[in-house]
């Protein structure tokens, strides 16, 4: 019984990889490490500095322009 269950480990592993592959495949293999932010200030077009990214060891803030 235990051997039988051990024998199922790889098929489950392969199945999970298969699901992962299809999940990624449907997104074109796109990495998804981006953050979606809603209602950014409309003035970013005129004043790009108003929007700060959360990347590079500091958090996002909206300082209100240059």
């Amino acid at each position, binding site marked *: 019984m235990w*051997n039988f269950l*051990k*024998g199922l480990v*790889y*098929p489950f*592993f*392969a199945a999970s*990889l*298969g699901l*992962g*592959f*299809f999940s*990624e*495949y*449907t*997104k*074109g*293999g*796109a*990495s*998804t*490490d*981006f*953050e*979606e*932010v*809603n*209602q*950014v*200030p*409309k003035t*970013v*077009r005129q004043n*790009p*500095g108003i*929007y*700060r*990214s*959360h*990347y*590079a060891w*500091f958090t*996002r*803030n909206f*300082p209100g322009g*240059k």
Partner: protein
Amino acid sequence: MSELSCPNCGAPVPIINKASVYAVCSSCKTLSLKKDVNLEKIGTAGELADDHSIIQLGTQGNYKGTPFRVLGRIQLKFELGFWNEWHLMEGDGSSAWLGEAQGSYYYTKLNVGIPTEKIPTLEGDEDPIVIASGRRERITPGDSFYLGENWTLKEIMKATCIGGEGELPIGFQTGYEAILLDLASEDGMFGTLDYSESPALLFSGSFAPLEELHLTGIRQEEVAYNQTQIPAKSIECKGCGASINQFSPDFSKSLACEYCGSVMDTESDDLKIIAKFDQVSRDNVLLPLGTPIKLPNFPESKVIGVLRKSTEVDDETYTWTDYLLRYKGGYAWLNENGDNWTYFEPLPGVPKWAPGLKRVFQKRSYKWFANSDSNTDFALGEFYWKVSAGEKAQIEDFISPPYMISSERTDKELFWSKGEFIPFDTMKSAVPLDTASKLRKPEIVGVCEPNPFKNRLKRNLWVAAALTAVFLVFQIYGCIKAKNQVVYQGKFKYVQTSVPNTDIGSANFRDNSFVTDVFELKGETTENVEIQIEAPNLDNKYLFFSAVLINEDTDTAYDTSIETSYYHGVDDGESWSEGSKSDSKSLAEIPPGRYYLRLESQSDFPVGWGSEYSVKIVRDVMSPAPFFLFSIFLWLPLIYTFFRSYSFESKRV
């Protein structure tokens, strides 16, 4: 059928087959030669030994669609005991022979197709020299002959005629000795070269399992293979006087006392001692004599004999135990080696050689495993041959787990058997509880123990290969289907405006963020967007971008970061490089709409210095990364399983 009178006593002697030339009177055992309508006395047949055969004159059968009737027999005696050659008349009146020895049956016919000059001649009785095709050589079991068929010599035996009964196509003389060579072909055929005549007669045919003979009219219905066996009897040891059981009097030819090691010939009433083992030990005899064995898929049997054997390899002695099992209609062996159990049955024929040091039997290929010598250290119980102390043999094993085939070769015989590995739990449940409690769980890998990792590896290889193929097909399809639409391209120059490592947002920080022109993303919501940045002149520097794709209409931003960094140099005379002058990031499921890109950059350039770079935005891209990434993960565990499998194989003993 004609009925003639015995020339000695006048009793009626029925002759059923017109081809029969000799007849034995059932009343006075006179052997007569048929001459026209009379019988002429030529001798007297000896008294037949009671060998408990289930066959008798008049027994009928059907082998492979050919009906036959038993008309007569010649009984012979050889080193291992008695055997019978039953003379059969087939449905069309032709003669055949049914050899019966140690519970095995061989259906043969005289082979008249071999030119007499091709049949090897024999010189000498002991260690005979065969003269074949002008060559003189001493023969040993395992040697090959070509006589219309490739034959392998299985056994050399000297037989003594005991007597006969019924009607026969050939004559015999009681006490007459003849050399017989038993042969087997790779196709499973059986043959005997009988040197009682010159040139020798070749009888060829096949091994015939008892159930395939469909016998009727057998002797003593109660001893038939599907009926009750002859009950055990008690014997007093001639060596020490102990009372010992003979479990299978109809089968065994010798009995080894479990107390003093004396071996008695049970074929003679006086039970004379024929051998003696110096040492007798019941230590580690895990299955005592008389233990019933009920293994699934094998006939119910009983342990009637125990042999302890050993071999020396590199000054180390390895021992194992063979248990002789007797069941109704045959016998088998249970081999115990390092607490691993293997069930062995006699193998008819000689397995074929195949390339790569392999043997093939019944379409299964067996890999060579080991050669060794074996010495019989001691014996307990009863055996179908006359056991002698210090019997030596050469053993060759071929494995195909859970099966193995094994040959045991002595000066006189080549014996093949087929084994099947018995798992410990199966073995435990096959014996009575008190015996099972003494069995030990094996700590080493058995010779033909199935390798769980090998089977798992094979199965996992299939799973991985199939899934990789599916991944590849989808990947290729995805690449073909992807639009790869460039929606924006721009060239920019980064110039360091703040001292490196200045806190962003601090008083000394000079913001360098900017936005691109607006571009349109078409297509479906499920399609992705790839932002590609390339800085071809980057040299021992990095450029880090906080990139935000912002939808002009909905004010939704998709935040990510991209870094290009390229460093190189020479250390200790070795040149090195790391990083890349380009990078890209894919953003999944970006809805269609009008977008612009906000970029904010950082670098380790000194103030006033910088580098050119280009930005490209592509809609609906298929990345090869998932295929490679998932395929690698898929195959990684197989490396581990392969090593586990290899490790298991190296532990086989």
